[in-house]
Every structure is written in structure tokens, then in C-alpha cells.
């Protein structure tokens, strides 16, 4: 059983859904989560759809931990933790959460072409927050891009978010970071480490 009473989670299979936009490191983050699950001795499945994502589309990855995991896809309404690397994508997938599920949101927007061309409006922060609150109040916002930029590499907001998740689940940071370290280029190890721990302390602030 996975029990996180403070997050309202008590389940035999822990379902993570990671969503973002091509180029945000969503896939790397889901690889880390899947490897972590395996390292902790769980059965693991990680499913993603490649293909058109490189061309500015949404990226979706399902990661499941459990004693025996069957379906690679998480059923609608069964997501325990939604990790959104972009705000609009958070809104697009929030209905996948189980009631009162947890959502970790990178407070960042990437304008889709349908908005830049003037055909659609990017919803305001208040609209997004309100809509998310219809589903859950367990929403955790982290400005991963700002933190990553301050550290000097705006590409590693995904690692900040992983840090936040680690903090939220009250996990051992070193065992998490060891795995991340294997997936990032050696020369950027220190800055990734800083990003990861910064993510942890951001969540501590929110609590």
C-alpha cells in the first residue's frame, strides 16, 4: 500500500500522470520516476506517446507503481498525482485526477500557436486556479522555470519539479537525486542538484 495520509492517498497502485509540452523534459522526468519505482522494488509501467510531440504538441506520460501493474494507461479518474510542467496542460488533464487528487504545477506558460495566431485566448491565472479548484484543493504551485533561470539554466525546471514531488511525498532526497544524476550530463550535475533541492524547499515553504 502507498500511504500518504496528508495527501489523502492510500492505494495499492500509485498512479502518476506527467504532462507538458515538447522540449520541457517531461519524458526525462517520467523515466526518473519509473526507474525510482523499480529501484524501490515495485512493479512499474511507464507509457508515453511519442510521435508528433516534438512539433509543439502536448506530451503525456503515465507512470504506475504497484505490486503488479497491468494496464499501462491510467483510467480516467484514477490519477493520484498529476505533475504538470505547464499551466494550460495542467488544466487540460486535471479531469484525469481522482476526486481530491494531488496536482503539482510548474507555474509557467507556453503559448500554443492557436493563441499566438489570435484564435484562442490563454486562460488567466485566476481562471486556471478556479477551474482546478473545482477538482481539488491539493494543488501545489512551483515556479520551476524562474528557479531554473536563477540557477542559470532555464531547461532544468523539470528537475525542480521532481524535487518538489520528492518533498511532497517526504522521500529520501539522496536516493532520488542519485537516479537523476545518472540521467543528466555530468558537467551539469551541480546545477541539477541545486535545482532539485530548491524544489524540495519550495514545497516545504508551501506546506
Amino acid at each position, binding site marked *: 500500500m502507498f500511504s500518504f495520509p496528508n495527501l489523502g492517498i492510500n492505494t495499492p497502485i500509485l498512479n502518476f500522470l506527467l504532462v507538458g*509540452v515538447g522540449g520541457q523534459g517531461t519524458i526525462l522526468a517520467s*523515466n526518473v520516476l*519509473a*526507474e525510482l519505482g*523499480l529501484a524501490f522494488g515495485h*512493479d*512499474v*509501467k*511507464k*507509457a*508515453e*506517446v*511519442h*510521435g*508528433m*510531440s*516534438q*512539433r*509543439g*504538441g*502536448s506530451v503525456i506520460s503515465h507512470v504506475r507503481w504497484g505490486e503488479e*501493474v*497491468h*494496464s*499501462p*494507461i*491510467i*483510467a*480516467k*479518474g*484514477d490519477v493520484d498525482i498529476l505533475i504538470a510542467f505547464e499551466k*494550460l*496542460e495542467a*488544466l*487540460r488533464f*486535471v*479531469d484525469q485526477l*481522482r476526486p481530491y487528487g494531488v496536482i503539482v504545477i510548474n507555474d509557467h506558460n507556453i*503559448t*500554443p*500557436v*492557436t*493563441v*499566438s*495566431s*489570435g*484564435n*484562442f*485566448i*490563454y*486562460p488567466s491565472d485566476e*481562471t*486556471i486556479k478556479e*477551474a482546478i479548484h*473545482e*477538482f481539488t484543493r491539493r494543488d501545489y504551485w512551483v515556479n520551476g522555470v524562474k528557479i531554473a533561470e536563477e540557477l542559470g539554466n532555464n531547461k532544468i525546471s523539470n528537475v525542480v519539479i521532481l524535487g518538489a514531488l520528492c518533498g511532497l511525498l517526504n522521500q529520501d532526497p539522496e536516493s532520488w537525486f542519485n537516479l537523476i544524476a545518472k540521467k543528466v550530463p555530468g558537467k551539469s550535475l551541480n546545477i541539477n542538484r541545486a535545482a532539485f533541492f530548491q524544489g524540495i524547499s519550495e514545497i516545504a515553504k508551501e506546506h
Partner: protein
Amino acid sequence: MKRLLSGNEAVARGAWEAGCSVASGYPGTPSTEIMETFALYPNVYAEWAPNEKVGLDVAIGAAYAGKRAISTMKHVGLNVAADALFYVAMTGIEAGLVIVSADDPSMHSSQNEQDNRQYAKFSRIPCLDPSDSQDARDYAIAAFNLSEQFDTPVLLRLTTRVCHTSGAVEVSESQANLPEPGKYPRNPLKYVMIPANARQKHPVIEARIAEIAQFAENFELNRVEWRDTDLGIITGGIAYQYAREVFPSASILKLGMVYPLPKKLITDFAAKVKKVIVLEELDPFIEDQVRAIGVNLFLHSEHDSREYPMTKSIFPVFGELNPTIVRKAAKRAGLYNGEIQDSDWKVDVQLPPRPPTLCPGCPHRSSFYVLNKLKVPVNGDIGCYTLGVAPPLSTTDTCGCMGASIGVAHGASVAGDKERHVAVVGDSTFFHSGIAPLINVAYNKSNVITIIMDNRVTGMTGHQENPGTGKTLQNQETVSLDIQALVRACGITKVLTVEAYDVDLIEKTLRQWLKEDGPAVLITKEECALLPAARKRYISLEVTDQCNGCTVCFRIGCPAITKSAELDPKYNRPLAEIDAALCTGCEICAQVCPRDAILFRNQMISKAN
């Protein structure tokens, strides 16, 4: 130790462990990573062939020569390779031959949905259908053994969800110890399919498939999992996972080999459960066969909707399954009483879609901008450049399968269509199946104008090498095909190669050619903007205060150009703005701007100094 492998990585692993040493295929989602992974193993030969037909012929050639071989492709690739499939089904092989077809239910990145298990039945060869990464590795190994045991190619059929799901896999560190191949076979009765020999062969392969069906009765890949006997589920492939997820207490007959089927195993299973159903994705492939055996499947009364047509008794015949779809269908049939969390919960906000688009800096963009201005009918093809169909470029009128563009344009021309047709094709697609139709244009003298968009890579599927790039799959230097010389050799005399970013030259050339008669080929050449070498050249451009919001630059559909919040004081319309994080400095916008309000690269450089 268990490793986390995707289904594709697991197939490559299994093939390697089975001692497969030759692989030839053509990229195509969701199959591509099998070759990319296999190519990295020691002591193997792996290549990208120009198309799937060539790839399969090569693998067949290696298997005739006594080496275990594999050929990989996406589902539609097997349509291209079908001619080869049918002869090798007749001849058999010397060493194991595995044909991998990766199907794409729900068409995540495909032009159609087809169930390639049908090809196994059609050509009388066995078909294995793994349901996760461990299966994928194990079945790849089993496929080679089966191939040699019965002297037949084996179809290893995957689906997107198996290809692109990672799971824990138990692997072996050692490879099968295979004998050295003997002398190349001189066996015309077996390998020369002239009618006299082929006629002898047909009864042989019918007997072979009957024999394999017999073998299937005790084949370890087909297994019964006894649980509650109220409900029995016959399933295979990815659907097995949904069966376990949705019906945890049901008994299951898992068919690892979905063709040919074990009659006795199925009837015995059906006899021991109260209700028996088939759970499978796409076609009623298992279902039809099970019915033909005479098993009474559980039916429910309503067969009326489009989603649940007559041909399948319970589950939808199109689209990928998932637990929610399976639960809903089962509920409808009275087989599931649980809650379905298909929340009427819906976000109440209008969500801007995020459709795929041509990337910032894409060298295809300029041609589509010009074609849009010229208003000619455009027969498109398959690749990144299919995105020319999307607004605001909106410049593709047809797109069917790889290589279709030039033939379809030629058809309109010989049919006497009053408008002049332009065919648009990418470099990899041209090598794949564009050359023969171009020869046809020259030979049969139509006036098609073809644009070959040479972005120096197979882009859509994630940057694979091809005969134009000068590199092989295993990273060897090689010849780089000269497209212009090839076009001339096809019999086309009017050929020009231009820089793909040169909007004016493309426009001038096409306008001139449209006035003249006869076929012509324009090659627009520029590296894909996502290639590492191209990335090094990125400079972001800027809009100056000359902009008056005229909107011309919006019409190129570049994600880096947005409408700013600032309005032009005179016309009260939004000014253009360039997102520095996205702009690559391709200068297409700067060229089309009528007021020179966008700085060119050299202006940016001198401004910086």
C-alpha cells in the same frame, strides 16, 4: 537483475539474445526504436533501407544465407513490403526470419488504422502478439525458434502501447550459440517461385499452418490462468492487460500466438467457464476464428451503434482500448457492475488546442507560404511537411500514403484538370517511393511541378539517416545521394536546387514554371532546424518600430511570431512580436515583411557589435 525496457528495446534485446545478426527496416512510429537500439549491440549488422519492401528483401536475403534476420516497420510499412511477405511465406528460409509490424491503434501518428494480424492469416504465417516488454523480449526469441522449426517467417505484431510502454524485463546476458551458416542454398524447387514450383508450394504452406495450429495446443506462449469460472476471457496482445485490470477475478486464456489458433485449448477453456468472451483491440480477429471453431460466445443484445458494430460482440472495433473503454463496454453488456470514474467532471474553460505545427525555423515553411499565395492545387505527401495543411498556410489538398503525391498529381494532369498541379515530397519519402512516380511523370510527359523538400534527414520520425545524409544507421560515412542528378536521370530536364529559406527565389521560379509547359522539379535544400548543426546557427530576430500590424508575417504560421498586446496607434491592430526563446533566425518573416520591420541576421549582428 531486471531492467526497465520499452517494448521496442525489449524486441531488440530479444533479437540480439536469439543470435539475430542482420536487421533491415525503415523508420515509422511506433517501430523506429527497435532498429535504433538493435544497431548498438555488438557484432550485428543493422541498416535503414530506403523503404520497407527493400528492408524485408534484405532480411530475407540474410535468412536465405543462413543468418537469423529481422525486418521492422510500422503497420503501413507492411503494405509496402507485402509482395515480399507473400513470396517468403511460400519459400521459407534457412535461418530464422522475424518480421516486426508495429500497429498504431488510434492513429497516434499514422494515416490509417489497420490490424496487421490479418496479414498472418492472409499469408499463412504464424503471428505472435506480446502484451508487455517482458513478452516482447521473450516472444522475439520464441519467434526465431518457431521460424526455424517450421521453416516459415514469423510475424511479431506489436501495438503502440506495447512499443512505447516501459516495464521491468528479465534478460539473459548470453547469446544463443548458433552454428555457422552452410553453403548458400542451390535449391530452386524451394527458392525459385516460378509457377511450377509455386504450385507445389501452396499445399505445403497450408499443411504447415495446420501443423502449427496443432503445435499451438501445447505452445508455452498460450496459457490458461484459472480464477473464477463465471467469466472466461480469451485475449491476446495489449488487451490482456485490460482484461487483468478490469476483470481481476476472471479466468483468462492468454493467446501469445494469435494465429493459427489452438482449437482444443479454446473449446476446452470455453467448456469450463459459464460465459466466455473475447477481448481484443481493433478487428474481431480472434473472435471470428473462435466463432468459426463453433464456440458460443456470450452476446449482448444491442448491436446497433457505430462504435460497437455487428462484427464485434462487445468491445469497439476501432481505436485503442483503455480501462475506461473496456469498463464501459463491459457495463453495457452487463459484465461489469463497478463504478466507472468517467467523470462528468469536465473543465469548464475553453482550452486552446496545442496542435502539432511546423517548428520555428522549419525550412519547409517558405515553400508553403509561396504555394498559398499562388493558389495552385497541392498534392502532398507524408512527413513533417504534411503540416503545410494546417492554417494559416493551409496548402495541402491531398495526402494519402508515402510516395502518393507525384502519382496523384500526374493523374490529375493526364485527366485534363485545368489547374496546374504541384506535388510536394520530402527527401526520405522521395527515396522511399517517389522516384518511380517521377519517372512516370517524365516518361508519360505530364506537366507536374514537383517540389522535393530536402531537409537532409528523415524528420517526422525523429531524425534518422537516409541515402541523402552521407551516414548510415551504424554511423558509418557513406555516399550522399545527389538528388538533382537523380532527377535528371529520371528524364526531367527542368531542375533547380535552391536554398529553402529563399522565399523570393522560390516564388520567382514557380511563377516562371507555371507559365511554361512540361514537368519541372524544384529542390529546396536546407537542414532541418532541429539538427545539432542548425541549432548552432540560431540567432533570434527582432521587430522594429516600423511594424504597423499589417499581419503579413502572421501568415507564415511561425510559432515564434505572436500578436503583441501593443496596438498600432493608426490602425489599432496588434503589432508583431518575436519570441526570442523560439526564434532561430531563419529570416522567412523578415523577407515577407513589406515594411522591412524585422531585422535580418546581419542587422542583428551589427546591432550587437
